[in-house]
């Protein structure tokens, strides 16, 4: 077996979720080759190698420097065929998902999405019903595409050096039919789907002007900020921070919910978190049933105290 891993860059650095995919590929297939598009920082080849890749295929064509779903899918399918890979590993993202779908068709490969664990034999476990259950899938056919969720595996750092090879895929005009006019992206912040720790606020915070304490706690923990659906519906926070059934589904190691009652639709977006802390003034809030640790009380007092206590602990 041999795995190709699609590694996404963010500001010229391999995304952490992509490094997880590299370690996953190595664990599944014994060896992993990474494919990377666009300019990357000088230290990234060694980070990708350390995560488990023995080889990096680097696409440096200017036409492919910015994300392009169709062209990346064509290039990855070409690399799969050229390298004789039978498995493609991709981490779930707004680019990884559609690229995977297209590659699966091009290669006639069986695809498993939302994979939450390493395979056991040829059975791959997917998270379904928005985190409320799992399906153990048998993938038919010679080739497979596995799209993994965050935290399906820990990033390894004990791999060796990876050789880097430039790859110039055949490009096809039909792959350039979608024009990205511009993109707006919060810079410098930790992206919600990538974060190991998420601090979320709900209606209990009473208004967008009170988000400072959520941001302070998040900053202290190196966490991303999220919110409940009502908060994003009322425009207190942008939609890309909405965690839940119809928003972003997160699977961090720690999820801290402040002033969120825990409607089933919100729980659906967080139930694959490893640990959940709930801070709510209502002891009957349903979220406590899904939590590992709970504090009943006034968020406006507890959150700043928690931030201070963590700072003190960090020294």
């Amino acid at each position: 077996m041999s795995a190709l891993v699609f590694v996404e860059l963010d500001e010229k650095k391999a995304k952490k979720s992509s490094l997880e995919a590299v370690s996953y590929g190595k664990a599944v297939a014994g060896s992993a080759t990474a494919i990377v598009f666009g300019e990357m920082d000088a230290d990234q080849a060694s980070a990708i190698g350390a995560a488990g890749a023995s080889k990096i295929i680097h696409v440096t064509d200017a036409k492919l420097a910015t994300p392009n779903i169709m062209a990346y899918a064509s290039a990855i399918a070409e690399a799969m065929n050229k390298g004789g890979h039978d498995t493609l590993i991709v981490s779930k993202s707004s680019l990884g998902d559609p690229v995977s779908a297209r590659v699966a068709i091009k290669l006639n490969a069986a695809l498993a999405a939302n994979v939450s664990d390493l395979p056991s034999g040829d059975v791959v476990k997917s998270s379904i019903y928005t985190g409320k259950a799992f399906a153990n899938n048998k993938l038919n056919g010679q080739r497979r595409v596995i799209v993994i969720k965050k935290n399906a595996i820990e990033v390894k750092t004990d791999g060796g050096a990876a050789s880097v090879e430039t790859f110039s895929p055949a490009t096809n005009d039909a792959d350039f039919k979608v024009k990205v006019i511009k993109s707006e992206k919060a810079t410098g912040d930790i992206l919600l789907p990538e974060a190991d720790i998420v601090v979320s606020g709900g209606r209990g915070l009473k208004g967008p002007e009170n988000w400072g304490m959520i941001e302070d706690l998040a900053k202290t923990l190196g966490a991303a900020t999220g919110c409940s659906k009502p908060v994003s519906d009322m425009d207190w926070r942008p939609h890309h921070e909405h965690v839940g059934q119809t928003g972003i589904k997160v699977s961090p190691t720690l999820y801290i919910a402040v002033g969120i009652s825990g409607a089933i639709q919100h729980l659906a977006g967080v139930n694959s978190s490893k640990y959940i802390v709930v801070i709510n003034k209502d002891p009957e809030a349903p979220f406590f049933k899904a939590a590992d640790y709970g504090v009943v009380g006034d968020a406006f007092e507890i959150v700043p105290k928690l931030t201070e206590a963590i700072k003190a602990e960090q020294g």
Partner: protein
Amino acid sequence: MKILVCITHVPDTTSKIAFTENNTKFDKTGVQYIIGPYDDYALARAVELKEASGGTITALNVGEADTEPTIRKALAIGADDAIRVNAFPTDALFVAKQIAKIAEENKYDLILMGRESIDFNGGQVHGMVGELLGIPSLSPVMTLDIAGTTAKMTREIEGGKEYVEAELPLVLGCQEPIAEWKIPNMRGIMSARTKPLAVVEPTSDAPAVVVEKYELPPAKSGVKMVPADNIGELVNLLKNEAKVI
């Protein structure tokens, strides 16, 4: 404009999820089925586009006969006619092949669906349909406007959004706030009873993925409560018990 809206027939978001037959089948007992919430956004936007500039809307579902009440609901909301591909939707590739076949026969300008179904959450079908038809697919699309044959869209990306333009035909996976959900009115419900609903047989493709067994996540061991005046204890637990900070 000819619009195809693909809908899923899925358990209501508040459903308790359970399995039967030695964890090989979903337990439908007491479960209420709905149009997938994301598909409902797609359908609502299709109705708005039709109201603004005319055209037809066909609703498509890949499912067995028990999905017909859900399809009738789509007709009540505003689809003109409907097609049911008579097969259990085993996996994304199988479903995508069914949709692509219908699309090849009928040449739609726009194929809309939800960003993902809320049962299997794969979010792969729109991309696969696009690839099978050789046309672009985009998801999750948050706004959609059409002028002539050009579609202007915003697509959510991690930490923000991108503004995208492409020529029709297109396949789009939709999410809020592309439109407000529409509730069928009495006239819609009455007319839905007589709108055409064609049942067609599936292609001969075998499923690419077979679920051998379902399982439920391990139950939480119970919440540990920390008094509000002892936040240091919470930090201690996170650091020394959970080891997450």
